[in-house]
């Protein structure tokens, strides 16, 4: 039971700085953080206050609505910092350790020995529950829901995104175990989205529904895969889990072990030692970020260039991120830039010349290349969104906060990452992702 879906719309942004498939040694880090802003849909409260001694696996924070959903410390040590932002909102809870290699042990009776409820309890207490995301709205799943299906994308098509087949080479068993665990959580199907050109070891998965996708980014986004294989209807709930986190859940239920380790890609034009690194979630990136161009002002991103989070050089790897990207900041004026040929810049628009040079890779910085304007140009979002969703109309309905219209236009089918390319190509420099998130927040408030 498998079929091939051709994705025609979309864009593989030709950005410089891909990471070669080599596993490199991660410099030892002793500080780890959980960052509440990473978690959509949770209302987190701090449990382990500053200066508390914690063991690996101890609860740092918990969700106020459902106290069973917790964030745990990946290491044993002391809570050394609780960093707050506006309105005293907690941004980071930092734990410092002397033993970063610790493995957290949990009691388990194996996949077949546990009921659905027991599995959910174990995933929750191990602090892995937030890895299960629900559609619509891309928030942390609610344990009481019975998802229609569970979707997993096995490839990352985002700019410079990691090769998941390579990153999960030594965790194949864990990944397949994870699929078995997820199958017990849904009465529907576990749906795997594979890369048609290079499915990798994921192709060996059994008892799942496989769909092969062929085409440019965002073909690897799970939302695009859902829409193009088993689209959600109004009221449907599906769960999604990233491939690396499937392996983490599999290892927990099958062996009772959690390490929070994952293999990330370190990429971008300003990285001097690009490659793959084994890192713990939440790790301090400072030493890794030493391996970058020192001449230029840089932008450090936990995640990819479309959806990642800007971090300081002393920042921490996000809970969901499988890569770290470094690009030039580019905060410079450009003399009559809009009127220049700009051969060294990429544009999807043929108003510049990059369409004449296919295959060329570009060094891209964080400059906006223009000012924000009202919607003027039409038809450009449609070229990079492989969904039967009208992107501009959806965004407008989110702007004027019409719940009924948002729903009819399919806000339950998309999350930020699916429309991130729209933001990239936008002539009017609209903040597409944040407009969409505001719309989704309103939907959650009014309808859930």
């Amino acid at each position, binding site marked *: 039971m498998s079929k091939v879906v051709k994705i025609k719309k979309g864009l593989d942004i030709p950005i410089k700085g891909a990471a070669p498939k080599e596993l490199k040694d991660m410099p030892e880090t002793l500080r780890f953080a959980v960052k509440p802003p990473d978690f959509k849909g949770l209302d987190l409260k701090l449990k382990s206050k500053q200066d508390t001694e914690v063991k690996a696996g101890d609860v740092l924070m918990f969700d106020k609505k459902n106290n069973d959903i917790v964030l745990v410390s990946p290491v044993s040590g002391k809570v050394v910092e609780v960093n707050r932002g506006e309105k005293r909102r907690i941004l980071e809870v930092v734990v410092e350790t002397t033993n970063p290699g610790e493995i957290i042990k949990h009691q388990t009776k194996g996949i077949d020995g546990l009921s659905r409820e027991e599995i959910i309890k174990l995933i929750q207490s191990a602090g892995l529950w937030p890895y299960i995301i629900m559609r619509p709205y891309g928030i942390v799943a609610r344990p009481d829901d019975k998802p229609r299906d569970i979707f997993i994308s096995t490839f990352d098509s985002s700019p410079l995104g990691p090769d998941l087949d390579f990153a999960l080479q030594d965790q194949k068993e864990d990944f397949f175990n994870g699929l078995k665990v997820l199958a017990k959580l849904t009465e529907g199907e576990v749906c795997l989205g594979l890369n048609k050109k290079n499915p990798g070891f994921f192709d060996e998965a059994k008892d799942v529904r496989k769909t092969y996708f062929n085409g440019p980014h965002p073909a690897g986004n799970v939302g695009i895969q859902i829409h193009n294989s088993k689209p959600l209807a109004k009221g449907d709930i599906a769960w999604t889990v990233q491939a690396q986190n499937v392996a983490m859940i599999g290892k927990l239920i099958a062996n009772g072990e959690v390490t929070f380790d994952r293999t990330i890609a370190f990429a971008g034009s300003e990285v001097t030692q690009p490659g793959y690194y084994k890192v713990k979630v939440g790790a301090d990136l400072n030493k890794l970020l030493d391996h970058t161009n020192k001449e230029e002002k840089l932008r450090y991103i936990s995640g990819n260039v479309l959806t990642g989070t800007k971090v300081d050089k002393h920042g921490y790897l996000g809970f969901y991120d499988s890569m770290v990207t470094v690009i030039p900041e580019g905060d410079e004026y450009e003399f009559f830039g809009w009127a220049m040929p700009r051969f060294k810049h990429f544009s999807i628009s043929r108003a510049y010349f990059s369409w004449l040079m296919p295959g060329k890779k570009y060094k891209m910085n964080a400059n906006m290349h223009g000012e924000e304007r009202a919607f003027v140009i039409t038809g450009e979002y449609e070229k990079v969104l492989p969904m039967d969703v009208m992107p501009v109309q959806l965004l407008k309905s989110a702007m004027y906060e019409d719940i009924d219209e948002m729903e009819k236009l399919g806000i339950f089918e998309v999350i930020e990452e699916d429309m991130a390319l729209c933001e990239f190509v936008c002539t009017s420099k609209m*903040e597409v992702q944040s407009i969409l998130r505001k719309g989704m927040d309103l939907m959650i408030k009014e309808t859930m």
Partner: protein
Amino acid sequence: MKSLRKLVDKIKPNFEKGGKLHKLHSTFEAFETFMFVPNTTSKKGVHIHDVIDLKRTMGVVVLALIPALLFGMYNTGYQHFKSIGELANQGLFDLFLYGLWKVLPIVVVSYVSGLAVEFIFAQIRGHQVNEGFLVSGMLIPLVMPVDVPLWMVAISTVFAVVIGKEVFGGTGMNIFNPALLARAFLFFAYPSFMSGDKVWIAEKADAFSGATPLALGAMGEPQVNSTMDMVIGTIPGSVGETSVIAIGIGAIILLLTGIGSWRIMFSALLGGAAMGLLLNTFAVNPFMAIPWWQHLIMGGFAFGIVFMATDPVSGSQTNKGKYIYGFLIGFIAILIRVLNPAYPEGVMLAILFMNTFAPLIDFYVIEANMKKRMKRAKVSTNA
């Protein structure tokens, strides 16, 4: 360039909040961002952006208009000297120079009056100055008869920008194409300056007939000008509308860069041809019998569908809607042109008319998308 930047940085504080010239900050910003693409980097959302922006987009459209403008200047001279019977004595350069002398003031007046309004509104609203008028300011002179008094250009431009655009909230919010609105304003307010056979040729000799092919057609005497003349554009008409070749070059620029909608252009051509064929079939007078393809090169049809109908703001915004929108523009333009002799230039009215209906077309396209999605909901709940 660096010293220029330094100078700008030095005077910039005067225009910022608390500065002496804060009242002019929109104006300052407009000039600053015109010269320098700002150094702002992304704060949230995507970290990289495409280099396309509205200035570039509008710049390309202005570039696409240049061939029509240059030919219009040449043709102004050509028509003038032809009418006074001295065509043989003038060189190409003389013709062009004469046209430049006549057309340039219209361009200047259009830009100055329009931009003045834009700057004032941006200042009052505390907005940035939008790029939209860069194109409108060039379109307006090209759809005017060359003999139009400059004060009329100014009035119609101000009317178009204020009533056509600013009252709706500026570029991106307008319902009608501002340049067409300027022309329509003059057409109805000062009809004697906008039609007839006097206005199309600068300083025309009285004895010479200066009627456009359309006017002649409406009077039942088509085919005074050869097809070749109409393609090249050496016929009387609005400044920029006569040469199909010059407009064609512009169309190629717009289509190649992807900035003009091929959906609209293509379906408008189709619509025009369809109406032309229909009229040919039921022809009862010589104008109706004009071969359908000749309609596509006559009057402002080519200019209208290439530069006016493709305005993304006032046109249909959905891809499916664009086919319907374009087709009806072509269809109605030829209909008005042939069957209502009071309005020889049907293209302008057809586009303005369809501007009104574009939101309605989009409404139904969007509705269809919604219905499809809601149907899915029903199917899955039944299953």
